[in-house]
């Protein structure tokens, strides 16, 4: 009996020792995110994951919240100060946002000069590094659309359009653009990173070009 107990204890120790420290750490790890709205307004914290009831608090722009649970593609359970409730996930970012955005009127369209073709190709494809992570599409307005394009420039034809929460895989990126693959169709193209949010750890707009 004693030998069996000792064997069991040793086996348990061996198993625990083989689990990576990071995984053990993640059991007690706390994840955070920051509130980001395009107009600098505060974010409503709600009692339930819906807009049926009035908010219980307003979380200021840039405030840090503790993440508890991803309810679905739209709602996240968070904690802010003494409050615990639900916010819309599209207004959270893992990277601390800059100062409140200020409104700048959109410039009037001006005719573009015709660049040297070879130079412009080199320019638009510069700075790309390989990577691999999943993202959700996040249009600039709720319920909006985002173009996947043939090349990493807005002056390129779209391939097709994507809606909020559509999932894509990023396989390469530079500071502004990501080369993405649609896992459902295999279609690949380019999308502005501003419209992509990494699923899980980190953020799509982390500056170092890595997905984690």
């Amino acid at each position, binding site marked *: 009996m004693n030998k069996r107990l000792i064997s069991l204890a040793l086996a348990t120790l061996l198993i625990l020792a083989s689990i990576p420290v990071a995984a053990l750490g993640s059991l007690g790890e706390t994840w955070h995110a920051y509130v980001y709205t395009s107009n600098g307004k505060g974010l409503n914290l709600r009692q339930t994951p819906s807009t049926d009831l009035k908010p219980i608090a307003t979380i200021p722009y840039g405030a840090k919240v503790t993440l508890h649970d991803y309810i679905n593609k739209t709602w996240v359970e968070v904690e802010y100060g003494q409050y615990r409730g639900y916010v819309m996930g599209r207004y959270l970012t893992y990277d601390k946002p800059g100062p409140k955005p200020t409104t700048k009127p959109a410039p009037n369209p001006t005719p573009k000069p015709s660049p040297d073709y070879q130079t412009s190709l080199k320019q638009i494809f510069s700075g790309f590094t390989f990577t691999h992570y999943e993202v959700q599409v996040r249009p600039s307005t709720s*319920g909006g659309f985002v*173009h996947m394009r043939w090349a990493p420039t807005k*002056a390129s034809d779209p391939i097709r359009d994507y809606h909020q929460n559509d999932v894509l895989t990023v396989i390469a990126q530079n500071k502004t653009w990501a080369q993405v693959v649609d896992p459902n169709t295999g279609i690949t193209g380019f999308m502005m990173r501003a419209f992509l949010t990494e699923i899980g750890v980190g953020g799509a707009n982390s500056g170092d070009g890595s997905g984690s």
Partner: protein
Amino acid sequence: MLQKILSLLIALTLLFSATALAATEKYTLEEDFQQFDVEVEIPEGAQYKQNPKDGWLSLEIWFEDPAKPSFDLNISFSEEVEGGFLADFSQEDKDHLVALISEDFSVPVHEFFETPSGNTVLLTRETDTEAGDYALMVTVYKGFFFSLYCSHQDYSPLAEEDLALMHQIIEGTWITDTEK
């Protein structure tokens, strides 16, 4: 004789009226928004499909004729404009909306217009011929973004008739308030 002609005229009038009424199909979106119900007048000859989405609505409208564009109508709540209406936006808020919409256009042009039912709508069109052709109509109603996107499958140039269809759809989208 005169009575027969009159009866025939009345019958023909009724027939044409019934035909005209039958041409526009109305579709009520399946949703669980507390704030309103939405009914869309589908253009004659168009097919449509509501796509299941998590917490927001998507209605596709298209034609068998490949020369005609397809349309996507999305309705989604926004915390950034909670409870708001585009008609009540300040100039600063309108400029901000224009800036947001412009982010995925190469060389956009914008136009605000009012629908016959009094809703303000922002129309944005792509003018960079190298970037394909597409157009977007956006309005905000009770804090919800209503976005109508129009393009050909190959993003070939949109004709004035295509934009007229966009107007027809957005102006044929009826919102019935249900919130007490």
